[in-house]
């Protein structure tokens, strides 16, 4: 049966080509129509194929389609082929769906921007690259998509390139990502070197034969892959680019830096679960790094005043969660959280975009407040998303976050410490998110009068996507209701065939899946406990930022050191500057001023002057007259013939 998978990636590509090649010649309406329609159709096609996938028997849910042979080089062959299995189906639906909503939203948000056409061109290219990444059936093709999204991220962060901070942020994102990509690439080399193929199926099938569980090679390979993931998904130590990436248009932040691209790392690890399961050390590193990132980003978010930066750190924090899930071998939970997070974080960003739109570009929360009345639709949807991210029962975030917390407690790779850190982060999350909500939507307006008069609700084209996302943020979690709450965790079951690492390795699958050894009671207790703690955090936020703002100020003053540390984002950028960038610049300066000027140039100039001297000596031969040359030809002939005669 032909599923025409290629349509999913071809449509956005067509949109990109059409918009890109006719850039500046199409009317805005047409541009946005092409862009939205291509992504929308791609999404529709994805849904169609998804249902075809569902119709298949559970064990055989995978559609593979080879378009052409990309690199045929002897033994090594890479096909341009696509794979649509449960894991990629989820990703396709999330990516295409969220992209489509954000495309619609962008029509309103970017309406007055001179770069309208360029914006949608980039956006379509991004969707193409992201879908390629997700649908690839081998690592090399995935890497193509991986680089493609990196490129689009660079282009879109620096979309307003005339602004220096924006173009700098774009470059920073690109460079930081390159470091991760480099690791990723080396990881791929190691895999290819050992396995001889980059096809998922081949690699996963042959991995158990080739690698020893916990062996050095597989650990190194997976660590390098994880390095790539940290770059793309903004984890310690490569997270520094994401907050700066907020220089891009807000829908871009929502699409790329919240919902899709940054989750590529999580997707990649989930996809490579077989490999990661064979390297427990790496798993531990992943879990620790994930949780550390989550905690650190959450604390930083406490002290930020820029609405988008808060959300950016929140994103980093949530991504940390997903990695933590992966680190405790709960890949399905990670993907689950990825999905719900895509909904509510996109919603949060879009909501903040709506706010910023109304505030005429103002992003500092200290100058906001009381927007509830002016922007009811934005407020309601934003509030729903906040509840979701905070983990209030009934909203999608609750299910996924709780799943992760439980897994980090109960999994073979988990421990109570991990759980405790995760819980603490969750509490912080609830706190800073409600701080954000209270500062923005409640209380008195602190903006100037001009802005105040300007306040308005965003147009329909922006609010409708918000509502759609709000609905998704609520119901998105119900696909994965855990057993303990009477559900059957269908999401995990759906993904189960892909998670071959869990039931193909040394571990017995039942052991991990049912978390034997821990009773349902424990799970329920922990769940309730965490909810209670989160509610308390919300109350604290309410008390500090709405009831008693002075207290917040006093606390800040009393803990000025801590606040400065948090506000300054732990000075990671500065540390990097001192430890890496400055030595690099100094080293480069040394290379330039000393090595290059004296040694290299010396050699080059010396050679040049030697050559010059020789040519000055020989130059008289070059008279420029024909007869001399003819004479030389004759002389050459004489010598040559003479040689052959004498020989």
């Amino acid at each position: 049966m032909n599923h025409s998978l290629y349509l999913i990636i071809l449509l956005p590509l067509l949109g990109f080509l059409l918009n890109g090649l006719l850039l500046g010649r199409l009317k805005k309406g047409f541009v946005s129509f092409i862009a939205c329609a291509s992504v929308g159709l791609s999404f529709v096609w994805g849904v169609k194929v998804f249902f075809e996938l569902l119709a298949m028997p559970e064990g055989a849910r995978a559609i593979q389609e080879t378009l052409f042979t990309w690199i045929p080089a002897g033994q090594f062959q890479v096909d341009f082929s696509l794979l649509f299995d449960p894991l990629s189906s989820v990703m396709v639906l999330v990516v295409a769906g969220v992209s489509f909503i954000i495309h619609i939203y962008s029509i309103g948000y970017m309406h007055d921007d001179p770069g309208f056409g360029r914006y949608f061109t980039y956006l379509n290219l991004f969707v193409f690259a992201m879908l390629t990444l997700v649908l690839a059936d081998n690592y090399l093709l995935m890497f193509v998509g991986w680089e493609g999204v990196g490129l689009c991220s660079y282009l879109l962060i620096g979309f307003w390139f005339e602004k220096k901070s924006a173009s700098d942020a774009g470059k920073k994102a690109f460079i930081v990502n390159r470091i991760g990509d480099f690791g990723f690439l080396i990881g791929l080399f190691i895999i290819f070197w050992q396995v001889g193929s980059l096809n998922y199926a081949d690699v996963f099938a042959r991995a158990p034969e080739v690698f020893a569980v916990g062996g050095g090679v597989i650990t190194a390979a997976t660590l390098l892959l994880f390095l790539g993931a940290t770059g793309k998904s903004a984890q310690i130590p490569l997270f520094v680019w994401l907050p700066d990436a907020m220089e891009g248009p807000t829908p871009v932040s929502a699409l790329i830096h919240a919902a899709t691209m940054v989750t590529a790392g999580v997707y990649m690890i989930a996809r490579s679960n077989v490999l990661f399961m064979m390297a427990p050390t790496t798993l531990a590193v992943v879990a620790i790094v994930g949780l550390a990132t989550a905690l650190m980003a959450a604390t930083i978010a406490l002290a930020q005043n820029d609405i988008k930066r808060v959300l950016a750190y929140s994103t980093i924090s949530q991504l940390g969660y997903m990695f933590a899930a992966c680190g405790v071998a709960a890949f399905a939970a990670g993907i689950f959280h990825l999905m719900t997070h895509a909904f509510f974080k996109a919603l949060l960003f879009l909501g903040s975009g709506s706010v910023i739109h109304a505030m005429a570009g103002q992003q500092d929360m200290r100058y906001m407040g009381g927007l509830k009345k002016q922007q009811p639709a934005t407020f309601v949807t934003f509030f729903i998303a906040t509840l979701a991210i905070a983990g209030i029962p009934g909203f999608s975030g609750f299910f996924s976050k709780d799943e992760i917390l439980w897994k980090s407690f109960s999994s073979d790779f988990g421990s109570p410490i991990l759980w405790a850190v995760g819980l603490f982060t969750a509490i912080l999350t609830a706190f800073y998110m409600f701080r954000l909500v209270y500062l923005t939507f409640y209380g008195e307006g602190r903006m100037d009068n001009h802005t105040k008069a300007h306040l308005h609700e965003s147009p329909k084209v922006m609010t409708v996507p918000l509502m759609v996302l709000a609905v998704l943020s609520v119901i998105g979690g119900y696909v994965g209701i855990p057993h303990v709450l009477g559900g059957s965790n269908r999401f995990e079951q759906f993904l189960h065939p892909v998670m071959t690492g869990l039931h193909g390795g040394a571990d017995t699958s039942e052991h991990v899946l049912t978390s034997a050894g821990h009773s349902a009671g424990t799970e329920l207790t922990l769940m309730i406990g965490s909810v209670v703690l989160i509610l308390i955090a919300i109350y604290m936020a309410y008390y500090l930022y709405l009831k008693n703002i002075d207290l917040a100020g006093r606390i800040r003053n009393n803990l000025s050191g801590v606040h400065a540390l948090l506000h300054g984002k732990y000075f990671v950028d500065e540390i990097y500057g001192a430890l890496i960038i400055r030595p690099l610049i100094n080293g480069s300066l040394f290379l330039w001023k000393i090595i290059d000027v004296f040694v290299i140039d010396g050699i080059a100039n010396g050679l040049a002057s030697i050559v010059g001297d020789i040519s000055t000596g020989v130059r008289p031969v070059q008279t420029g007259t024909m007869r001399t040359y003819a004479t030389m030809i004759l002389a050459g002939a004489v010598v040559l013939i003479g040689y052959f005669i004498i020989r």
Partner: protein
Amino acid sequence: MIPIAHYLILGGLLFAIGAVGVIVSRNLIVMFMSIELMLNAANLAIIAFSRSLNLMDGHVFVFLIMAVAAAEAAVGLAIIIAIFRNRETINADKFNLLRR
């Protein structure tokens, strides 16, 4: 019967004279004629070989060489005319732009 070598040596001599003409003469046209002479010297050798091998193919070669020579003469003379229009001379020693 004259030995074939005689014809060949005659051809060689004519060729050498043509070569002298090319490198000694300053007149572009004479240089050009010397080249034609060299071509013909080669033709003579080819005809001689053709006779000695009792193969007609050499005649075809000569025929083709003549055609090429005719083409060459047409283009070459056109070039000489163009040069003369520009420089008012066809003294080969006056053309040393290649030097720079």
